[in-house]
């Protein structure tokens, strides 16, 4: 008997591939933003599937804060080389050196917000008309109302009150000169979907996501990785713990969780049992109730 139904992961996959193909068909110079985190790894995997046997027909771009986990950089470079994909790296340090961005000060200083300057400059310099990102609607409330095809004006800004209606599978990428789009192919995926899909597709992941011993310290109830550029408060002390990353981003704002999860199956069980969202340990979202919206309006990922 032939079967005419697919499971939820295959349906999400089909939807995302449809969106990525629309991007390539509708835009002249698309780019895919790549951070080395699980969402961008899955998004790239979908792009690879969408165009096989053609190589992925757009470059990857990493906005590098300089505050990375070494492993992420190696994973990124290996992936680009293995798949023959062009990789563009833009450095926040360059934006600081040429006076476009000013380094934050204080204990919670992070280059996360500064990435926006580097990103918008890169989009303008390289004349990209569409940047795909791995944002998901379940991640954060300002993202819950984001479109698949999200319009940005000539300043790279998002106007959440005047978003274009998005109906059926009809995505409208029409724009004026100087404007661009942000497209989020995995909008409808949850953290659980991402991990289940990684397991189903057997996608190799950076080992940071699995349990390992790391020098960490506790700040505001969240465990943070210790690194030379992190400043400690007097009462904070570095300890060695068994941890894993639930999200991977800039070290200064990525929390780690105490975990023994050693395999994808373990991670799925841990996510299923977790009662805190993955962004619960992201320092960048804790700045204010509308932190994400404010960053997004200005042109953040």
């Amino acid at each position, binding site marked *: 008997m032939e079967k005419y139904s697919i499971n*939820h992961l295959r349906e999400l996959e089909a939807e995302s591939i449809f969106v990525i193909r629309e991007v390539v068909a509708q835009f002249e110079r698309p780019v895919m933003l790549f951070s080395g985190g699980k969402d961008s790894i899955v998004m790239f995997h979908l792009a690879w599937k969408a165009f*096989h046997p053609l190589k992925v027909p757009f470059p990857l771009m990493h906005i590098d804060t300089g505050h990375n986990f070494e492993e992420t950089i190696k994973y990124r470079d290996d992936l680009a080389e293995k798949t023959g994909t062009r990789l563009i790296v833009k450095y926040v340090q360059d934006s600081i050196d040429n006076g476009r961005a000013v380094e934050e000060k204080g204990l919670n200083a992070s280059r996360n917000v500064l990435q926006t300057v580097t990103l918008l400059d890169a989009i303008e310099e390289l004349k990209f008309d569409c940047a795909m990102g791995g944002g998901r609607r379940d991640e954060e409330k300002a993202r819950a109302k984001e479109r698949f095809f999200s319009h940005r004006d000539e300043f790279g800004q998002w106007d959440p009150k005047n978003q274009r209606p998005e109906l059926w599978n*009809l995505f409208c990428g029409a724009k004026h000169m100087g404007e661009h789009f942000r497209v989020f192919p995995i909008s409808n995926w949850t953290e659980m979907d991402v991990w289940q899909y990684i397991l189903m597709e057997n996608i190799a992941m950076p080992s940071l996501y699995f349990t390992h011993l790391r020098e960490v310290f506790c700040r505001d109830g969240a465990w943070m990785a210790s690194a030379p550029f992190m400043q400690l408060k007097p009462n904070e002390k570095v300890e060695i713990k068994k941890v894993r990353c639930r999200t991977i981003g800039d070290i200064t704002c990525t929390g780690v969780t105490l975990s023994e999860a050693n395999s994808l199956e373990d991670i799925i069980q841990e996510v299923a049992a977790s009662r805190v969202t993955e962004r619960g340990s992201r320092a960048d979202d804790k700045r204010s109730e509308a932190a994400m919206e404010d960053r997004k309006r200005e042109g953040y990922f």
Partner: protein
Amino acid sequence: MSGKEHGYLDMELLRFTTAGSVDDGKSTLIGRLLYDSKAIFEDQMEALEQASISRGGEEVNLALLTDGLRAEREQGITIDVAYRYFATPKRKFIIADTPGHIQYTRNMVTGASTANAAVILVDARNGVIEQTRRHAYIAALLNIPHVLVCVNKMDLVDFSEEVFEAIKADFKDVASRLDAQDIHFLPISAKLGDNVVDRSTHMPWYKGETFLGLLEALPVGQDWNLKDPRFPVQYVIRPISDEYHDYRGYAGRVASGVFRVGQEVVALPGGLKTTIEAIDFAGKSLDYAFPPQSVTIRLKDEIDVSRGSMIVDAVNQPQQSQEIELMICWLSEKPLVVRGKYQVKHNSNELRCIITEVKYKVNINTIEEIHDDLSVGLNQIARITIKTTKPLFFDPYKQNRDTGSLILIDEATNNVVGAGMIL
């Protein structure tokens, strides 16, 4: 532990839309589903309680979970469709939750356009009211396959079977005037949890499923049109590498029907006949493909096929015409202009059109046709005729949501101004 043991490889996806305001208990109903299925996390719940209390509310206001936009929180209103996610061991659910107050029709149409099911809440004390008719009309217009009528606040009418039956009869009367789909009625109390996740002990007379039970049981697999093979071409894949020198594949998503290797097909426009040589997906060959799969089709003969083309069954072909009759929902503050030119997006095809005639408008509160005032503004629904610059290949929306839908785009602003359903 394998995926099979987890069970997640057998999970299906169901998209449903909910409409209405806070008063009819919609937030309470969704909140219960989300919380009971652990889709609301502790840090979210804490933030929610904090925010609700600081705004002077007594109960947790679920809207604050997704009303994350500054403007929404400042004005205390929901501006846009909010997407929420939860899963049970059987299914993953995507809720398109549409606000009741402003932009009502525009939002509900948007949320309904991809939904398998519509949840309509009726306050047991008020019965079928104007808003109920509006919900029912839009669900029918958008051809949502399943409608769940939840008669809520049964606790406030002493869990009365008579009240429930009377509302059911009233709703059926409304539905009989619509092209209605599979309708289910449930007596619930979202606040007390009766028949939401657990069976009610107060209503032994109700023998049907609970709300969650029904959401898990709706036959979504049958919602796809499996009989009319339609494949809009999104993109042509030509690697021009040594290994794949002559490879020419048509990338797209199966809109409807089943495509098989060896099947006789034609490519529109042009209408040249050929056969399917292979169906590829990421290095694997498939024997057949069905909706909503994204695949790559290769054809035996080299014929002119590009983005905007549609590969269809050689015998079972869509209609084609330059004069199209459709129902349109107007989404823009700038009113519809008769004789005005608009851009059309239909599947992967982009073309232009002139709106030639407005036949009538629909009063969606009474479901009556309006013939004397034919001006069409924001949130209004009308029957119109358009003339397109080239032929459109389509099926009636009632038969095919993919090939029967289109959007109109304002050429000056690039805004999406109309949602069309072809008759």
